[in-house]
């Protein structure tokens, strides 16, 4: 019972501090950065223009590109390690 009581007190304190922190939040004026696409050509210029035109599309594309590249690189490395002869499906050690 003593333990349960302590847990409830801890939860209550945490909850109150959380609400206080949420209520106290604030922010300033954001700084706007513009990409200089004049020195760029091809895909780099297109990318810089996309950044200037729409942060939403820019973000969406970034969030799609990162995992796709991660998966491609991961699969490529899989192939290489399989070729070398490393077992990638099991781990013998089971200790802490």
């Amino acid at each position, binding site marked *: 019972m003593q*333990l349960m009581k302590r*847990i409830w007190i801890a939860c209550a304190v945490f909850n109150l501090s*959380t609400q*206080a*922190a*949420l209520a*106290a*939040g*604030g*922010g300033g004026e*954001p700084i*706007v*950065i513009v*990409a*200089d*696409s004049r*020195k*760029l050509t091809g895909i*780099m*210029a297109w*990318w*810089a223009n996309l*950044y200037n035109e729409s*942060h*939403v599309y*820019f*973000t969406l594309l*970034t*969030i799609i*590109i*990162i*995992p796709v*590249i*991660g*998966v491609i*690189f*991961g699969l*490529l*490395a899989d192939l290489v*390690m399989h070729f*070398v*002869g*490393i*077992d*990638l*499906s*099991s*781990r*013998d*050690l*089971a*200790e*802490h």
Partner: protein
Amino acid sequence: MDWLYILMPIAGVKIFWPGLIILGVGVGVIGGFFGMGGAWMVTPGLNILGFPMAFAIGTDIAHMAGKSLISTMRHGKFGNVDYKLGFIMLVGTVVGFEVGAQMIMWLERIGIVGPVVRWMYLALLALIAWMVFADVAKRRRKEREALAAGKEVDKLATGLEWHKTLHRIKIPPMVTFKQAGITCSAWLPILVSFFTGWLAGILGIGGGLIRMPALIYLVGCPTHVAVGTDLFEVMISGLYGAASYTYKGRTELVAAIIMLVGAAVGAQVGSVATKYIKGYGIRIAFGLAVIGCFISVLLKLIPTYYPPLYTICDVSATILILGLVAAMSTYITVKMVQGAAREVAMKKGKTA
């Protein structure tokens, strides 16, 4: 030598691209091995290469998401990721992170954000380092005592056993995590992840540095599962962070992709190395990394009290961080190559 430099389309700065690949390899190895994003190493590295600080953070988080995905895929194949635990902890992590970030705004308003964050970070790192080495010392004592009694210590035995006490709290619902091999109240991982997320939000870091030891010492995960599950969390929070920073216009995707080329190789090396290094080997190396991080933060803190020491402390911190990345990634790579060579030789021996 102009071809060694690439103009970043958003930040508008020319960057030495081989430096990005080398940095990617180094932190990829360390991240895949320890289960952390490694922001404390990458951000100063990117800053040195010429990125403005805001872009350094955003680019680091973007590359971290991709790198953690590669590592999670690899650890998942080894059975090191407890997805159920990861998803449950995600709830606490996200809520905790937002609360921590809001608390930072509040501290900023009352004008004490800098000292509070730095000293809190230092205290936390000291606590983690103490936990790791106290655990190692206690486990070694158990081994010596078992040896003296003519027995062998249990492979699953640990030094610090705080998780056993926490597992005795049986507030419903009780959950079993098969991959981690533990049964506990669902509130334990939720509260632990809320706490680690809150700390990460306050300190402005990804959280792997805190979550990995918390998974071991508080939740009771075996080291390898803690590393894998933590990487899963880093991957999700990295994607969230990347979206947030990109929307604010502070991510340089070109740099993140170049870093990913190196990090893809590094993350594989680091993840595969966990196959050949015992759990306590990982813990000791992690403890050393935490000490390195502690010293680098301390070096950044000293000039706020003694401004004349700014240059020397800044240079020392940079050298320390880059030296630590180089030394640790080399050690892990060597261990991985040695282990892989042994495995390949054994396979050849069996077929011959």
